C-alpha cells in the first residue's frame, strides 16, 4: 500500500483491524484472523525481551518463543531489558510478536521503520514465508521489501476521501 503521508494508510489499517468504525463497506474477514502491528512497538521497557514475548505467547496460546526468536534474529537479546534496546532491535521484538500470534492476515503499518538493510531483507523473507503458508499481508510502506513478484501495489491516493477535517473541539479541559 503506497501513498503520501496523511492519505489514510494507518486509518485504513486500523479500521480493518477493528480499532476504528467503518464509514462504509464491509470487512469479510473474521477479526480472529487479523493481527495488527502499528507504529508503536508495544514493548515494555521494564521487562526483558523474553518476558515481553512470553506475555503475548500466553495471551495468544502459542507454544514456544524460541523458534520465533530465531526467525526474527533476537536470540541473543532474550535476556536484555527491553528498555536498553536500540530502536531497531525494539522494532524486531515488536515484529516477532507477529510470529507468536499465528494469525493469517497481517496488517502492518510501516514495519521497516528504523530497521537496517539486513533486517529489512530478513523481514521480507519472513513475509514471503508467511505468504507461502497461505497467509496474506497488507503493508503500508515507503520502501522496497523485495516482494515485487508476489505483491500487488495499491496506491491510496486514488481513493483519498474528500470530506473535510473534523471540527475543532473545546480545549478548556484538555
Amino acid at each position, binding site marked *: 500500500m503506497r501513498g503520501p503521508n496523511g492519505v489514510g494508510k494507518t486509518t485504513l489499517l486500523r479500521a480493518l483491524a477493528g*480499532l476504528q468504525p467503518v464509514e462504509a463497506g464491509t470487512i469479510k474477514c473474521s477479526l480472529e484472523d487479523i493481527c495488527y502491528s502499528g507504529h*508503536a512497538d*508495544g514493548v515494555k521497557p521494564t521487562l526483558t525481551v523474553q518476558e515481553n514475548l512470553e506475555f*503475548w505467547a500466553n495471551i495468544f496460546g502459542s507454544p514456544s518463543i524460541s523458534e520465533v526468536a530465531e526467525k526474527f534474529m533476537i536470540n541473543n537479546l532474550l535476556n536484555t531489558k527491553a528498555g536498553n534496546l536500540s530502536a531497531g532491535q525494539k522494532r524486531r521484538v515488536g515484529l516477532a510478536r507477529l510470529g507468536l500470534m499465528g494469525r493469517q492476515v497481517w496488517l502492518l503499518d510501516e514495519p521497516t521503520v528504523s530497521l537496517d538493510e539486513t533486517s529489512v531483507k530478513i523481514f521480507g523473507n519472513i513475509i514471503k514465508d508467511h505468504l507461502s503458508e497461505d497467509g496474506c499481508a497488507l503493508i503500508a510502506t515507503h520502501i522496497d521489501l523485495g516482494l515485487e513478484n508476489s505483491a500487488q501495489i495499491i496506491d491510496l491516493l486514488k481513493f483519498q476521501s474528500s470530506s473535510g477535517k473534523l471540527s475543532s473541539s473545546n480545549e478548556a479541559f484538555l
Partner: protein
Amino acid sequence: MLFGQGGGFGLSLAFFFILVVFFPFAIGPNLDLLSKVAPGTLWVGALLACLLSLERIFALDFEDGTLDLLVTSPIPLEGVVISKAIVHWLTTGLPLVLLTPFLGVLLGLQNSNVIFLIISLILGTPALSIIGAFGAALTAGMKRGGLLLSILVLPFYIPTLIFGAEAARRGIEGFETQTSILLLLGVSLLSWAILPFAAASVLRINLR
C-alpha cells in the same frame, strides 16, 4: 507482573504515610481529638494515595501501543480492565490496608478499634480501584490527563468515602456498623459489576 509495570505504587504508599504522619503535627498532640479525626484522615489519605497511581493504569499502554494489541487480542477487553484494576488494588489498596495499623497508633487509636478501619478499608478500596480504572480509561488518550482524571474521579469516590469513614467512625464510637458496612460492600460490588464494561467501551472509543 506485566500489568504492574513496576515502580509507581511505592510512591502512593509513601504519600499515604507522609500525609497521615503530618496530621498529628498539624493538629497537635491532643490524643482525644486525633482519635476522633483518625478514620476520616486515613480514609481521605487512602483516597488521595489511590489517585496518584491511577494514571498509570492505561496511559502507558496507550502510548506504547500495547492497548491496540490487547484490543485485537483474543482476551476480552473487560477482562483486561478487571485484571488491571485487581493489580492496582494489590499494589495500592492492599499495602495501604496493611500500613493502617501502624498509622492508627500514630493517630491515637486503640488497638481494638483499628480493626474497624481495616475492615472498612478492605471493603472500600477495591471500589476505589475499579472506579479509578474507569476514570483512567476515560482519560487514556490525553496528554497530561492526570489532573483531569482526579477531577473526574474524585466525585465518584464520595459514596465510598462516606460509607467507609462512617463504618469506621461508628465502630470506633461503639455503635452498630452493619448498615454502613453493607452499604459500603454494595458500592464496591456494584462498581465491580458495572464499571469493567463501561471502561472497556470507553477504551474502544478512545482508541479510534
